[in-house]
């Protein structure tokens, strides 16, 4: 899609659909309460295709949307996703977007950003409680990051096949 406006509209529609899927369908693939962060994969994808700034805005929007539909503290997911996508934006290579999203670098970036996202998110999530942060993060944060990374293989393989 060469028209940037149409592209952004497509991103927005995809974000909406993914937000709904996250709260409605993702629980069906939960393993022992661990669910992948589909919205983060999408935001990183945008960052690697459109650059750091657009990615951050996409991440912020995705986070807000997720906060709104998941009854979470509004802004907590937005903050975590903005910072995670900001880091992902450093891996943006202009004119070589497909190279990044269609290779194993994509799940590696997702793993890194997902871990960072979970550190920030759980830090604010657990702050009002007496739950031990490290223990909780190791139990849920790392497993969520691993599951998100595994799920990010699907778009990567898809792009990889298109390249071939």
């Amino acid at each position: 899609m060469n028209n940037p406006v149409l592209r952004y509209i497509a991103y927005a529609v995809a974000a909406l659909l993914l937000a709904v899927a996250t709260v409605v369908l993702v629980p069906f693939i939960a393993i022992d309460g661990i669910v992948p962060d589909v919205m983060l994969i999408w935001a990183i994808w945008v960052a690697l295709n459109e650059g750091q700034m657009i990615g951050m805005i996409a991440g912020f929007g995705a986070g807000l949307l997720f906060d709104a539909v998941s009854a979470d503290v509004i802004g907590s997911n937005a903050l975590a996703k903005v910072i995670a996508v900001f880091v992902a934006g450093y891996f943006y290579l202009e004119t070589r977007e497909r190279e990044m999203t269609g290779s194993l670098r994509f799940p590696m970036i997702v793993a890194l950003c997902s871990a960072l996202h979970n550190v920030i998110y759980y830090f604010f999530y657990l702050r009002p409680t007496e739950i031990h942060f490290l223990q909780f993060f190791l139990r849920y944060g790392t497993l969520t990051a691993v599951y998100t990374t595994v799920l990010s293989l699907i778009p990567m393989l898809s792009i990889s096949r298109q390249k071939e």
Partner: protein
Amino acid sequence: MMRIIELIVRFKEYVVLCVLVAMSFLLMTFGNAAKLRGFRIILISGVGLLQESLAWLPNPLTILSDNAALREANYRLSREVAQTRRAVAENERFRSLLQFRDSADYAVLPARVVGRIMDKSRYYLTLNVGVLDSVVAGMPILNDRGLVGFVFSSARHNAIVQTILDKDTRIAAKVERSRVNGIVSWEGGTALYLTNVSKTEDVKEGDVVVTSDYSSRYPADIIIGRVVEKKDEPTTLFWRLRIEPAVHFPSVEYVFVGLQPPDEERLMVEDLLEKRLKKGDGNRENSTRARDAIREANRLNREASKEAIKEAERQAVRDSIKNARERQNAPKDSTEEN
């Protein structure tokens, strides 16, 4: 100004990052505002509707764990149902026991069965009451259904009950409907027999058999059981009447001790008579002594001296107890050893 704009353009990513982070913090701080809350309620309601519409979809990853949880819940609920049933049955039992206690025209003491001793020809129960509760040997044991037995021996805190399912059982009984008298005995198993009932007497299957006024050990009119079989044996002049005990002995948990010791004197005389009938002239010395004591009591009675009567009666009772103890020494010792 231009330099500032230049700087912003140059570091626009950082500026956007700072702005978005600041916005996030602001939302985290003031995100609970009334307007936002209303918006969220609408969103969450919409999501709820979506989730509800997809609730029929099975989740393959949770089916196994759901199954296990449901099985566990099922097991737990089954146990609870069983416990409730038990509680209801116990409640009914206690209610009938209470009704029985209130209707009894003699003093009774409730007791719990804490043990059972069974062999081929005996069926004993151990109660949680004893001498300290005024329970002594010979006292009748009954429950709301009927006659259980009598206290065979009693210790400080416990008593042994000899049930009517015993080879030594001989109870003076009568058929409640026709007032026909007989003797209830046990011949093994869970059935009792009403003997010494002539074939000319009116007895039917289903008749209730109760203790007779002639019983020296038990109060009158306590239900023993029901006639379930009436056999005409051609070789004898008596009916063979099988009685099903009113008390279901394997399930007896609570009983009442009738707090009226048996008439020792009467017991002793009857025992002596029985012995004599069995052994011919039997123990002549004991029977003579007992007869003399009774004769003495009667003589004093005729003299109408209350004091003398009491004293003579006491003497007679003392003598008879002494004799009875001598007679029972051997079985008592063996019981205590047990």
